[in-house]
C-alpha cells in the first residue's frame, strides 16, 4: 500500500461549497385576504348528521339537490336539500362498513340507481333493491390490484367519462416502493366492465378527474421523485415520474397481464438527481406534469379538483379549481396545450376553509362543494372535518384570468379592464423562475433560479390583456410572477397578484 498523506477529513466540509438552501422572503402580509375573498366567493358550512364523523371522503351528486358523501369511516351518507341557504340538509345513511371510500360515481342514465364506490381493495356497485333507502347489494365490480395492510395504499376513483369508462389511481406502499400488485398504477374500468392497467409512475394521489375538454388528470403529492405537488395528465402507456411501480413489469404475478395489455416499461429508468425536463428528453414515455403547485407557496398536499362548465361560478368558466389538504385552500388552474402537452398556470383563489380540503364537486347551480378532513395529516383550517359550499356572490374579483405562454414570454388576460399606465410599467411585475431536482429522496428545494428581465410590455387594445416579453425563458421551470403594481381601470389592485406558470414547452408561435 502506498503512503497516504495526513488526512484531515473534517476540514473538507467547511471548505466545501456552501449549501444552496436559499430561503425566499415570506409572501407579503395578506391581512384580511379571506375577508376580501368572501366578498366574491362566500362560504356556507353544512351541518354534518348529528354525532357523525363526516370525514372526506368523496362526493357525488345523485340529483340536482341530492349529494352522496362517503367517509373515511366507511359510510355513505346522502343529503337531501344541500342547496338551501341557510343549509338544512336531511341526512340518511345509505351504506356503512366500507373500507375508506375515496371515489363515488353514478353511471349516467343508470335506471337501477347504483352507486359505484372505490374502496381500498376494490370497486363496488351498491344498490338498494328493496327501496328502503339503504344499500343491500354490494357487488364487487373488480379488484385487480393488491393491498397489504399499509395505510398509504389508498385508491382514488373517478367519475364515469364520456365513453362510460371509470379510472382508478393507486398510491404506492408508502412513499418509495410498491409492495402489492399495481401500487403506483392507474386502472381503467371500461363501460363493458373490463379492467385494464393504463400506466404507472404514480406516487401519492390526492384526487382524480377530468378537465373541461374531458381529458383525464390526477394530482400527486410532493415527495420522492416529486419536487412539488403537481397536476398530471394520465395517458395510456405513459410513465408519470415515480419508478416505484415499474417493478410489476417484471413480477411473475403481473408480467403477463401487462404484456397482454400492450404495455411496455419505459425505455430507461430515470436517474436520481437530475431535472425532469432533461430526463423527459431521454425517456420519451416520461410525461411531464401539467402544473407544479410551488411548495409551500400554493399548497402542500394537492387534492381533488373540479371545473365549472356553466360560467355561473364567476368569470372562470372551464378552469380547474384544485384543493389543498394542508393549507385548507382552493387554487385555480388555467391549462393550455403546447406541443400537444397540457401546461399552464396556477393562481391563489380562496383560502380559509374549515378543514383539509380533499374532495371538490360542482353542484347543478354552479356552487362548489368542498369536503375536508384533517385526520392523520394536519390542516390549517383546524376542524377535524367539514362539508362546505362556495358560492359566487355575483361580483367578479379583479384577477388574472388566463396566462398563456408565448415564444418570447407570456400573455395575461384579466377579469376587468386594466389601467394602461400601471400595466405598462415594468416595475409592476416581479418575475423569477426555478425548477426542482428530480430525485429519489423526499421533495426538492427550488433550484436553477433565474431572474428574467422584462424587455417589453404590450397592453391589448381591449385593455384586458398584456403581453410580457422576457429576455429569456427557462424550459422546465416554474415562472413565478407577481403583478403587484398592475391596477384595474378603476384603480384596484389584483385580489391575488401571484401566478405560477409551469413551462415544459415553449410555443414556437
Amino acid at each position, binding site marked *: *500500500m*502506498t*503512503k*497516504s*498523506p*495526513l*488526512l*484531515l*477529513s*473534517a*476540514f*473538507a*466540509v*467547511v*471548505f*466545501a*461549497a*456552501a*449549501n444552496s*438552501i436559499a*430561503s425566499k422572503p415570506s409572501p407579503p*402580509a*395578506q*391581512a*384580511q*385576504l379571506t375577508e376580501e375573498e368572501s366578498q366574491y366567493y362566500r362560504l356556507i358550512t353544512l351541518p354534518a348528521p348529528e354525532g357523525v364523523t363526516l370525514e372526506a371522503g368523496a362526493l357525488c351528486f345523485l340529483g340536482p339537490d341530492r349529494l352522496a358523501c362517503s367517509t*373515511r369511516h*366507511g359510510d355513505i351518507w346522502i343529503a337531501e336539500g344541500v342547496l338551501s341557504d341557510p343549509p338544512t340538509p336531511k341526512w340518511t345513511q345509505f351504506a356503512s*362498513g366500507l*373500507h375508506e371510500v375515496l371515489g363515488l360515481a353514478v353511471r349516467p342514465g343508470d335506471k337501477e340507481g347504483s352507486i359505484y364506490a372505490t374502496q*381500498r*381493495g*376494490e370497486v*363496488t356497485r351498491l344498490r338498494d333493491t328493496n327501496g328502503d333507502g339503504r344499500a*343491500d347489494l*354490494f*357487488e*364487487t365490480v373488480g*379488484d385487480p390490484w393488491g*393491498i*397489504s395492510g399499509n*395505510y398509504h395504499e389508498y385508491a382514488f376513483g373517478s367519475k364515469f367519462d364520456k365513453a362510460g369508462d371509470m379510472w382508478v389511481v393507486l398510491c404506492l406502499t*408508502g412513499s418509495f416502493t410498491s409492495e402489492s400488485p399495481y401500487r403506483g398504477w392507474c386502472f381503467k374500468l371500461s363501460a363493458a366492465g373490463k379492467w385494464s392497467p393504463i400506466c404507472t409512475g404514480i406516487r401519492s394521489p390526492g384526487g382524480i378527474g377530468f378537465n373541461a375538454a374531458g381529458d383525464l388528470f390526477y394530482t400527486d403529492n410532493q415527495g420522492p421523485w416529486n419536487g412539488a405537488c403537481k397536476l398530471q395528465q394520465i395517458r395510456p402507456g405513459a410513465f408519470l415520474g415515480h419508478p416505484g411501480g415499474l417493478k410489476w413489469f417484471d413480477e411473475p404475478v403481473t408480467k403477463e397481464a401487462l404484456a397482454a395489455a400492450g404495455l411496455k416499461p419505459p425505455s430507461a429508468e430515470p436517474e*436520481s438527481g437530475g431535472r425532469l425536463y432533461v430526463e423527459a428528453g431521454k425517456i420519451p414515455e416520461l410525461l411531464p406534469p401539467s402544473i407544479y403547485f410551488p411548495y*409551500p407557496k400554493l399548497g*402542500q398536499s394537492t387534492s381533488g379538483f373540479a371545473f365549472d362548465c356553466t360560467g355561473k361560478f364567476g368569470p372562470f368558466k372551464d378552469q380547474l379549481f384544485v384543493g389543498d389538504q394542508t393549507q*385548507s385552500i382552493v387554487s385555480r388552474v388555467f391549462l393550455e396545450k403546447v406541443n400537444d402537452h397540457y401546461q399552464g398556470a396556477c393562481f391563489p383563489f380562496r383560502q*380559509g376553509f374549515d378543514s383539509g380540503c380533499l374532495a371538490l364537486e360542482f353542484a347543478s347551480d354552479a356552487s362548489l362543494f368542498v369536503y375536508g378532513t*384533517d*385526520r*392523520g*395529516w*394536519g*390542516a*390549517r383550517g383546524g376542524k*377535524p372535518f367539514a362539508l362546505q359550499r362556495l358560492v359566487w356572490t355575483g361580483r367578479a374579483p379583479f384577477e388574472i384570468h388566463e396566462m398563456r405562454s408565448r415564444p418570447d414570454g407570456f400573455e395575461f388576460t384579466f377579469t376587468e379592464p386594466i389601467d394602461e399606465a400601471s400595466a405598462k410599467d415594468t416595475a409592476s411585475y416581479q418575475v423569477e423562475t426555478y425548477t426542482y431536482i428530480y430525485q*429519489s*429522496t*423526499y*421533495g426538492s428545494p427550488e433550484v436553477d433560479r433565474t431572474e428574467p428581465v422584462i424587455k417589453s410590455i404590450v397592453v391589448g387594445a381591449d385593455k384586458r390583456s398584456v403581453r410580457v416579453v422576457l429576455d429569456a425563458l427557462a424550459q422546465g421551470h416554474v415562472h413565478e410572477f407577481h403583478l403587484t403594481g398592475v391596477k384595474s381601470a378603476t384603480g384596484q389592485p389584483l385580489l391575488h397578484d401571484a401566478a405560477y406558470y409551469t413551462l415544459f414547452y415553449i410555443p414556437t408561435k
Partner: protein
Amino acid sequence: MSLRFSLFFLSTVLAFPTFSRAEISPGELLIAEMNCVACHEAAAPVRERLASRRAPHLGAEGVRATPQWLRAFLADLQSEKPGTLMPDTLHTLPAERKAEAIEALTHFLVSIQPQRQGAPHGANAAAMETGERLYQSAGCVQCHAPAELPPGRENTAAAWEEFERLKSASVPLGDLAKKFTVTELAAFLRDPLQSRPAGRMPGMKLAEREADAIAMWLLRGQSPGGPPRQMKGLQYEYYEKDLPELPEFDRLKPDATGVADTISLKPARRKDGFALRFTGALTAPTAGEYKFYLESDDGSRLFIDGKMVVENGGLHSKQTRDGTVHLEGGPHAIVVTYFDAAGERALAVSWKGPELSKQKIPASALSHDGEPMTPLGDAPFAVDEAKAARGANYFVSLQCARCHDGAVNAASPAAKPLAQLTARQPAGCIAASAKAGVPKFQFTDRQRAAIQAALSNQAALSVALDAEHEIRRTMTALNCYACHGRDRRGGAEGLRREYFTTAGEVDLGDEGRIPPSLTAVGAKLRPEWMHTVLAEGGAVRPYMAARMPQFGAGNVARLPALFETADARPEGLPQPDVFAPGAATDANKFGRKLVGIGGLSCIACHTFDGNKSLGVPALDLATAGQRLKWDWFRRYLLDPQSLRPGTRMPAFWPGGVAVNKSVLDGDAEKQIFAIWAYLARKNFTSLPDGLVQGRQELLVSNEAVIYRNFIDGGGPRAIGVGYPEKVNLAFDADEVRLALLWQGPFIDAARHWSGRGEGFEKPLGGNLAHSPPGAPFAVLDSQAAPWPSEVGAPAGYQFGGYRLDDKRRPTFLYSFHGVRVEDYPLGVPGEVDGSYRRTLTFCSEHPPANLYFRAAVDDKIDSQPGGAFLVGDKMKLTFPGAKPAVRRIGDKSELLVPVVFAGNEARIVEEIVW
C-alpha cells in the same frame, strides 16, 4: 488512494475563502490538529486560540490493541492506519535497531494496557446485519466510508462512481480485524472519549447490544474462525407474531437472533405478541435427579436432550409447572420455548439438583456452540519484562509522551518554541525530508506551505477568536459540518445525504431524516438545552435514524455560550414570565384549546408529552418550553418557512392574521403567547383535547354490523361482521374464504379511526377459531390427493361481494372454476355466546365431480355420536344431511364434506359450536 486523499485535501484548502483577520487559516488548523505545541512551546493566548487536538490515551485508560497490530502500526504507520496524524519517530534508525525498538515498544505498550476482557464472541449473522444497518444509518458513514449504496439508490454505474469518490473522501478505519476483539471494539464504540479524549471520534449513544453488533460487523473479517467451541450463554431466536399457542418454531423465520446470558424476556422487543426459543447446552455439575421449574405467562416448554421435561403451554396467567429428569454430570442439550399473546408476561427457569438448592439457572451453567471471533494473526503473547523496560525508555527518548499523556512523563523540551519558527523555508519537522531525531510527518507540499504561511504571521496566532470563528473552528475540528449546515457552510450533500433515513416508516420528509441546520441556532435554542444535547445525550427526534454524537463535555462546553453570542438578536424579545397572573390561566384555557382538536390541531402531527399524535410523529411539543426561546418560537409560528425553509409545518397566521378567529378574538399575538405559555409549563395536568383516543367499540344491537378494514387474522381486505347473537366473523376477501370466528364483543375501530389508521386490529372478543388455511373447496381426484396449497385468485377464486338480508346479515358471493357460491352464516343464540349455522349454496352449469369442502384441519378430529365431529378440543361441527369423512394426511386430520349436486345446485349446512 493516496493521490485521492491528497487531491481531496488540496482542493478543500484551495476553496477556502479569503481570510479576515480573525479567520482561521488552513495552516493554523493543521498546527492545531497536529498538536505542534506539544513540542513547540507556545504562549497561553496561542494555546488557547489553537485548542490543539489531544492524542489518544495509552495505558489503563487506553484501548487494548493487539500486539500484532501495534507491531505492524509502528513499522508502517500510514499502511496500517491511513491518514493517521501520528508522526514516524523511528524513520532514521537502521533496520535492525528499528525492529528492536518496535518490539520493545510493543511489549511496553501491551504491558501498560488493560487486560483482555472476556471470552471471544461467537460470530452471529443476525447481529452483523444489525451492525451494518446501524453503521449505515446512525451516522457513522457521515465520516467513514459506507459499505453499500444508500437505501433506495438504484444500482447504476454512475451511483458506484459517486460511491467510490465518497469512499476516498472518508476517514479510513484501518485494519480493525487485526487490531481488536469484538468485546474491546464494542467497549471503545460505547465510550470512545475514554481513550480518545479529543472527541474526533464521538460516542454514538449506543446500547450495549448495538455496540456489540457494530463491532461484530466491523470485525466480520474475523469470521468464520476455527472449529465451533463452547461459548457463553444460550442462542435465542425471537419472533414477532400474534399467537394463540406455542408455534412450530422451525416453520417460522425469526425476526431477530442472538446470544442471551440467561433465560429471560430480555431479548423481547415488544410488549405483546411474540415468541422466543432458547437453545444450547446446560452443564449439570454432578449426576443425579434434577427438578426443573418453569414459570411463565403465557405458555412455555422445557426440553432436555430432546425430551420435554416441563409442559407449561397454552394461554394462561403466571403459573409454574415442574418436571424431573435424571442427568449425568456434564453438558446436556437444552431448549426452552415461550410465547406471549397479550397482557402480562413472565418467564423464569429454576432448577434443583443433588447439590443444588432451588435457584434460577445461572449464566455459568449455560453455553452454546459457536464460531469464535478472534483478531487476525492472533498468537500467544507474553510480555517480556526486559523488552518492556527498554520500550519504556524508547517511549521517553522518542518523546512519545509529549502527545500521549497519561502514560509516562515527558522529557524536557527539545524543540524550538513556536514563536521562533519563522524560517523562510520549510525546516525541521515540516522539511521535505526530516532529519534524525525529528519526527516525520506525512505532509504534502501544499500542507507544508500552509503551515509555513501560518507561522509567518505569528501575531495572528495570539489574537483571540471571536465567537463565530471559534464555532467554525470547533465545528470543523469535530466535523459537525458533516451533518449540520450553518450559514451556508457544510451540511450533508450528494450521496452522503442519502444515508440519512428515518427510524421505521415515518412520513416526515427530509425533516424526519436530515439533521437540522444550525444557522442562527443560538437565537433558537436555550443554552441549557444546547448543553443537554451536546453533553448529556438530549434528543427530541426519535424518528431520525441518525444520532447526535457525543463529543465529550469538555470539547463542546463552550459552544452554547458561543452560539448565544454569535447569534444574538438585540431586537429579540426576552423570555416572558409564563407564570405571571393571567398568563397562567390563559395558557391552560386558550393555549390548550389552540393546541388541541377544535383549535389549531397541533396534535394532528405533533407528539405531545409522550402521547402519540393523531398523524405523523413530529417533534414532541411538550419539550418546546424547555428547548426554545420565546422570540424564535413567536417568529417561527408567524412564518414557519422563514426559519425552516421547506418545513411541512403549515402557517396558521399567514400574513400575521389568525386562521382561527374563535379563540382570543383571533388576535395572533395573544394566541401565540397563550400557546407558548401553555407549552412552557412542565407539568401538563390537562392534555389538549382529542389527544388521548379512547376505545371506539362497534356495538351490535339488533342488526348485524359490518366493518371492512385490516383485521388481524382476516387479512388486509377483511370483512368483519358482528351478529346480534354475540358471534362475529371475518371473511377474507383476498383469499376468498371465511377466515376467523370469535365470540363476545365485535371490534374496536379506534386504531383505524384515529390518526392515519395504521396496522391490523385484533378481534375484540375472545375464543378465536381460525378456519383452515387455503382454499375452502377443491376437486380431489383421489382420497389420497393432497389439498391444493393455492388460495384466492391463484386458486381460481373471485370475490363477488355480498347481499344483506333484512337484519343486515351478509350472504357472501363468490365463485371458482364456474361454480358460484352463496355463503350465508347465521348467528344462533346461545346461553352466553352464540354459535353459527352456515348455509353454503353452490350453483354451476357444469357441476364438477369429486368436489369437497374442507371444513377443518387439526391434529385431532373425532367423530361423535349423532354425526358431529369434534375438532381439537373445542370445536364441534355438524353437517345435517351430508356425509363428511375424516382423512389423515401426514400428521394432520382433515374433515372433508362432499359437495353433491342435484341438478345444477348443491347445498351444505354447517353448524359450528365452539
